[in-house]
């Protein structure tokens, strides 16, 4: 199948006019024209500095055979239309700033506005990453300060701030694991992950050059210790766990797991995506983990940006420190010269980012961390867990609770009984919830729960919001059982900028660019 083999609907009514706003939900539900439909040859937005540089013909500078014969056809719009277009697009986008986003595993908490102000400081934003150390002392200090704080939060000895997201952190961690084993003079081939693990874990294992061994969860939703022991052998490089796990449950046997893995010479990798649940309460290092990645875009409230950027620093115990990626910002010894500099660890696995990681995201995370401090971070965990348990308890009368025990920062429910009784599926519940003023929970993950609905309210939602959310979910379930309820659910959402989207068609008749349309 090649792109654009079929026609797509074209529902831009009339001429594509930049000043026509009916694509804004405020004024109706017409489609928003693309930038390309708004384009008119000869129009422009750009204005560039007057430089006085001699206007030598380009032919004298760049050889003809390297030159484009025609300019790259981008778009030609006025600044007015550019602004209107993207402002209208923003009106077609749900966000934390509009309402609750209880998307399990994603920690969509409120992102403080002060962090935007920090990331916009010219003294941070306008610094070249390759500038000499004498000109970047502030940045180096910031990185050192953040690294130290993250080490304290995780109970680790040192960290790299380079990974740009959680998955990059995972792969970094696996390469550290590999380097460590190699340094011990041994070659191991397997990494264990539980069946509830996030998809990035097995994908990273493969890229790290290991084979995934999956261990099942027991009926309490935790790693089956016996099954784990059964796969532990000399060929195991380590295990990747998140604790609390993706079911929102704390792995109570963590000490036994750690002992068992360490016994065969394996390392424990902590997937920090769920760290929000345990901030200041218990630390991965104290649980026995050797390598930890953090998702700063989750726990430390750096906004997700519609899918990124994130930041996935990796912290390690002392024995792994020499292998960390470099260069790392360090305090320099001695009273003379600059106070901070760069250093690459002795046995570094090497660089994993073009520069120093998503620096402006790191500055946001430090800001968040300092505002909260030791007491505030602990409170974050407490209230995140309180909110999730409140929701679980309240909704356990309406939805199935696959693992009926107190949860941590998120709760996994199931629509299995609802589906059996009414035909309404987890996906339908999610789509209906959109119409009630909330983002949907994560659905169908973790994979081991049938018709999963995974709710993570986070600590920044109020009791009133939880009540409204719970009521909405209760009403959806109640309505599903009434006359026409199934169809209402299957037809949802109705009040959103577009109605249910045909995902199958998107894959079948692929239109990956405007130029692939017919």
């Amino acid at each position, binding site marked *: 199948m090649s792109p654009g083999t079929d026609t797509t609907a074209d529902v831009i009514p009339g001429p594509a006019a930049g000043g026509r706003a009916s694509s804004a939900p405020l004024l109706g539900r017409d489609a928003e024209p693309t930038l390309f439909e708004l384009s008119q040859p000869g129009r422009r937005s750009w204005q560039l500095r007057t430089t006085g540089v001699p206007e030598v013909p380009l032919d004298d500078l760049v050889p003809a055979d390297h030159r*484009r014969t025609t300019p790259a056809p981008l778009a030609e719009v006025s600044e007015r239309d550019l602004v209107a277009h993207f402002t209208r697009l923003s009106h077609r986008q749900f966000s934390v700033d509009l309402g609750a986003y209880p998307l399990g595993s994603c920690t969509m908490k409120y992102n403080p506005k002060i962090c935007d102000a920090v990331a916009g400081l010219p003294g941070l934003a*306008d610094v070249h990453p390759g500038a000499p150390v004498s000109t970047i002392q502030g940045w180096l200090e910031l990185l050192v300060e953040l690294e130290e704080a993250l080490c304290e939060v995780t109970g680790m000895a040192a960290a790299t701030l380079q990974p740009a997201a959680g998955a990059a952190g995972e792969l970094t961690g696996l390469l550290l694991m590999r380097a460590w084993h190699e340094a011990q003079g041994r070659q191991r081939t397997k990494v264990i992950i539980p069946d509830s693990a996030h998809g990035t874990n097995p994908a990273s294992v493969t890229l790290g050059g290991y084979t995934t061994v999956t261990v099942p969860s027991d009926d309490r939703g935790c790693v089956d210790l016996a099954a784990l022991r059964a796969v532990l052998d000399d060929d195991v490089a380590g295990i990747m766990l998140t604790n609390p796990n993706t079911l929102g449950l704390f792995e109570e046997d963590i000490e036994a797991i750690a002992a068992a893995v360490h016994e065969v010479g394996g390392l424990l990798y902590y997937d920090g995506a769920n760290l929000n649940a345990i901030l200041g309460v218990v630390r991965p290092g104290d649980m026995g983990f050797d390598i930890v990645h953090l998702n700063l875009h989750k726990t430390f409230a750096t906004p997700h940006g519609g899918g990124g950027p994130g930041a996935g620093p990796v912290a390690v115990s002392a024995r792994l420190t020499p292998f960390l990626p470099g260069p790392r910002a360090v305090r320099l010894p001695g009273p003379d010269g600059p106070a901070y500099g760069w250093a690459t660890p002795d046995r570094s696995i090497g660089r994993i980012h073009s520069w120093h990681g998503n620096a402006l995201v790191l500055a946001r995370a430090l800001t968040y961390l300092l505002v909260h401090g030791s007491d505030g971070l602990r409170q974050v965990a407490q209230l995140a867990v309180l909110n999730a348990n409140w929701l679980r308890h309240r909704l356990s009368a309406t939805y199935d609770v696959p693992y009926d025990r107190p949860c941590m920062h998120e709760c996994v429910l199931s629509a299995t009984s609802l589906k059996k009784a009414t035909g309404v599926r987890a996906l339908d519940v999610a789509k209906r919830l959109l119409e009630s003023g909330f983002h949907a929970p994560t659905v169908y993950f973790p994979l081991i729960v049938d018709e999963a609905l995974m709710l993570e309210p986070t600590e920044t939602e109020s009791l009133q919001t939880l009540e409204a959310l719970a009521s909405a979910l209760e009403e959806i379930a109640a309505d599903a059982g009434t006359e026409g309820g199934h169809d209402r659910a299957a037809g949802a959402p109705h009040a959103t900028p577009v109605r249910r989207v045909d995902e199958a068609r998107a894959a079948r008749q692929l239109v990956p660019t405007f130029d692939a349309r017919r």
Partner: protein
Amino acid sequence: MAGYAPHTEAEIAGMLSFLGLATVDDLFAAVPEAIRLAGGLDLAPGAPEPDVMAHLQDLAGANRPVGPSLVCFAGGGAYDHEVPAVTRALASRSEFVTSYTPYQPEVAQGVLQAVFEFQTLLARLSGVPIANASLYDGAAATVEAVNLGVAASGRHRVWVSAGLNPSWRAVLATFAAGTGHDLVDVPLAGGTTDWTSADGDPGVLVVAYPNYLGCLEDLAQAREVCDRTGAKLVVAFDPICAGILRSPGDWGADVVVGEGQALGMPLGFGGPYLGLFACSEAHLRRLPGRLVGETVDADGRRAYVTTLRAREQDIRREKATSNVCTNQTLMAVTAAIQLGWLGTTGLAEVATRSARGAHYCRQGLLSIAGVEPLVEAPVVREFALRVPVEPATLIDRLADEGFLAGLPLDDDASGGNGPGLLVAVTERRTRTEIDAFAAAFEKAVR
């Protein structure tokens, strides 16, 4: 204690009693006593926002940002191009900033359409028809391209031009420890890659256009090697220079990667930037990361959705084409806005002006005694010089004079031609600035 939690004491008490619990600590009953943190974290207590802001302002004050008092001639993958107020205003709309990956397309058309437009713009610019929704940065995009190329060719030997950004080469090497790819450094000769010097059967060729020294590589030759050996051609292009250069697709690239920072992102001490990734249709099923496609909604109205999800790790797990999940969507949206602002004529203008500035500056610096070209091949907006003092020393001296003179080139960075200085000029540099730079340069090398 500071923070953003809404809970009042009374609410907490009520919620606990609803749960049948006595204290907040009871929520953590599942955490074994032995490992619980008794004394709390050894961090300062929370500080109010204004105090924290003052601290961050102090840190920012300890840096020297580029601007009138540190005029930027540094590049190497991070450029001081114009970012207009309009790009900043639109890209910082909180709907774009505070949303997640568009898992629910019905309420995510804003991000989805913006990314769809980004994909289209990148495809048009790179000259290949498929572009993804972004990767972390230029290095990460190159890693993914190599992985794709190895999988597509079935051969793990990768010929990497010594003209590729040295950081990216380093990242390639780091990740090759996991994938087992066999990376072969292919040296430069006179500023461009000498493919004849490499041996073995390559599965992938990686080359930059322009390369790290600013030179224009002979892509026809690289394509020819690929045609002969069946290798896949990965071209790391520069999206600004692409405004005036033949597109990688036109030269026959299979995969086009690049660093998108120059498309509206601040220097930002190196991140968040934007990993550009585009490829020919043949590699669609191996595309790493996210892809947005057009479709219709239940009423037949145009709509967008992430598609070909079956490649991704959340479904394919260990068999996924990549482990990428969170990417750099906001930067892709930013690039779409910036490219919308530049448009067809603006991008060409930025590239043209940058090239003019670079050549004017190069001429000025080469007129200084002891300053020579490091390599001779034609350049666009960046060039490498041999200088009569240690490059790092020169850079420090010129920083004192108010210029960020460039990046130092050691032997690795220069493909064996070092030491030297890599100088970049953008359309923002005025003749006055360039003349002052040349004058200060002359003093500094004395």
